[in-house]
């Protein structure tokens, strides 16, 4: 067990810890998915490599890529939170809503791609794909929220 300096965590730390956990868990899941996809390549399995499965291949690759990338976004968010605590006493509703948006995006978008690739209709993915725009909007919302917060912090600092 790692030694920790203190168990007293402020609200920023708690939020950062949540996103560090989510980010690393996401990385674990989506890197594992990546390995799984490589195994499917290695074993030349028709369910993934057959010419009829092009849409599935594309969807699952996107699930892996987005999942991994968004996990890194969570880690970046966690890091942003840790240094935000220098200037703010507590994360306001902006950070909290961004937090939930990022979590929602990490779940919905890769899941949409994953489900969309399980059942496909020729060049169209399965209906799971409809989770993707919802996830994308959440991620976008989170980004905008964080951007606005940091922009306002910068303005405050300038004053």
């Amino acid at each position: 067990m790692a030694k920790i300096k203190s168990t007293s965590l402020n609200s920023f730390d708690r939020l950062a810890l949540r996103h560090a956990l989510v980010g690393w868990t996401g990385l674990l899941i989506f890197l594992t998915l990546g390995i799984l996809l490589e195994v499917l390549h290695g074993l030349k399995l028709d369910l993934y490599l057959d010419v009829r499965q092009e849409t599935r291949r594309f969807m699952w690759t996107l699930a892996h890529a987005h999942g991994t990338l968004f996990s890194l976004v969570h880690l970046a968010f966690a890091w942003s939170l840790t240094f935000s605590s220098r200037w703010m006493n507590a994360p306001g509703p902006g950070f909290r809503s961004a937090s939930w948006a990022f979590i929602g995006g990490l779940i919905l978008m890769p899941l949409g791609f994953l489900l969309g690739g399980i059942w496909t209709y020729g060049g169209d993915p399965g209906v799971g794909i409809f989770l993707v725009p919802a996830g994308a909007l959440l991620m976008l919302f989170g980004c905008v929220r964080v951007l606005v917060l940091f922009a306002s912090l910068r303005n405050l600092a300038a004053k």
Partner: protein
Amino acid sequence: MNSGSESSRAMVIKKRFFVAVFVMAGVALMLALGVSWMDSRKRQTEQQSVFESLPRSRDDEYVSSNRCQACHPAEHATWHRTFHRTMTQPALPELVAGKFDDTTILSDGLIYRVFKKGEKFFAEMPDPEEMMYAVQGGKLTPLKAIRRVEREVVMTTGSHHYQTYWVKGADKYGNLLQTLPLIYLIEDQRWIPREVAFMKAPGESGRMISQWNHHCINCHSTGGNPGLQANSKEGSFATAVGELGISCEACHGPGEEHIKANRNPLRRYTLHRDAGETDDTIVNPEKLDHQRSSQICGQCHGVYIRNENFGMKFATEGVQYRPGEDINEKRYYITHPTENSTPLEWEEYRKNPKFFAERWWEDGTILAGGREYSGLSQSACYTRGEISCLSCHSMHDSNPVDQLNHIGNSQQACVQCHNEPAYTTNISSHTHHAPESTGSECMNCHMPHTSYALFSAIRNHQIKSPDIRASAKYGVPNACNLCHLDKSLEWTSRAMTRNYGTAPVDLTAEQKEISAALLWILKGHAAQRVIAAWHTGWEPARQASGSDWLAPFQARLLADPYGVVRYVAGDNLRKLDGFEKFPFDFIAPEEKLRASAEKAVLQWKDRAAPTRTGGEILINPDGSIMEERVQKLLQERDNRPVNIKE
């Protein structure tokens, strides 16, 4: 201090070194990009003349397969590997099979030379327009006096068995493409003149000169429009196609409306949800009834003439038929009259018997390969049943060689409908052959290889039972004797009477005594000879009849007057034991052909006596050939001119 300045100097050197490496890498990268760009530009410039000479792309309702790929990747990929796609292609280095290596080929006495300049392909040849005037226009110019010109080869036809080429026509005819009357045999890797690649009676007038724009375009492109400029002085062409080759829209219909409608994802997912529903913006041949579905293939694989007005409409506006429509509204599909036909139907035949002879056996069975729809549509399976081309074939779920689907080459294809025990669990009661033998395979009896195309006998799509009477009366080879090569028609007639209760057939003495296959080989006309010759190499026939007695008869065909008969005979002779490496050039001069034939007979005589002898196969008990009878049959050979419009 010293060490400090040394260290800073070392740092400067190190920095400079890295800068130099960085700059050099940058320069190398720029050079590589520049060379690659120049190479691509050069290639584009070189290919420009090819693309400028090809038919233009239609900019109306046809969208091309590239647009279909985005939504139908699997269908696109499975179609992409077919020979339908590669039927017509631009003459680009990666697509040209022929060796343009300065070879000279003699076609009907005229010299053609093929060569390359850089990445472009050329032919030195008699002026194709002057040839067109002389051969097709009846202008009395001695062909050897026609001036020689150099023309760029811009387009290819074929990619499976052989490939032929098209050169750019004179500018005044628009984008007219003239034939280069040569064929490149892909497997044999050799050039041959066009006239020996087809069943064409030697010495018959009519050189194989044609233009792609008004004829081949019909079936070798998708949505072809010859674009005949009817008012132009020279009769020039502004030819356009939906796509070269046979692509998605040839079978599914033009795709523009479909693409526009399905940009809406809600529409697409509603259609996905209602999987059984038909998207009315496109045609799915699988969802059509068996007749409409087969007509799609029949737009090319059939014998027809266009209905009134549609001929000129085709010439000026392009293909009028759209998949899913009733093709009979725009075309008249010709059938050979039969014994049951009315005098009126026979009248059509009497007006132009040559037209029928070039496409059908005399009993009305289709002869010309590539006309499968004309055969199928005359079959009871089609007229009384619901068979369609898609019962056995698929453009997406098949081997590209024959486009047969997963059941198309098995009993399963037939037992989809004929599922009674006599055709399934108790098949021997019907076939009178062992259940697992090739004699119990439905298609071997009901779809024998009695059509001819592309140097090969191919399965006849006029599905019917073996008809010994048609063999005796009209000379149509039958399934039984094409497998039992050593048996006479008498033997077959008796077997049919015994097993199926058919009436005994009146036969001549020869038909009673001598193997039917030998009669076709030695005494038959060219179509009979080529079909019988092909079967000597057919494995089921070799198993049923033995093969060590066939060579001395097959050998006579090596000097046949017809190039295709010689080719098929030579090709199948090499499948016989001891002849695997028999040297034979089917377009050699006549004396050499005769010498090859004699050599093959002598080679056979030098071998051990055959395992089969007897009067039926014209081999004496001591293993020698009944040469006198053979010679007599050869003298009585049916030398009628045979032309097959495959």
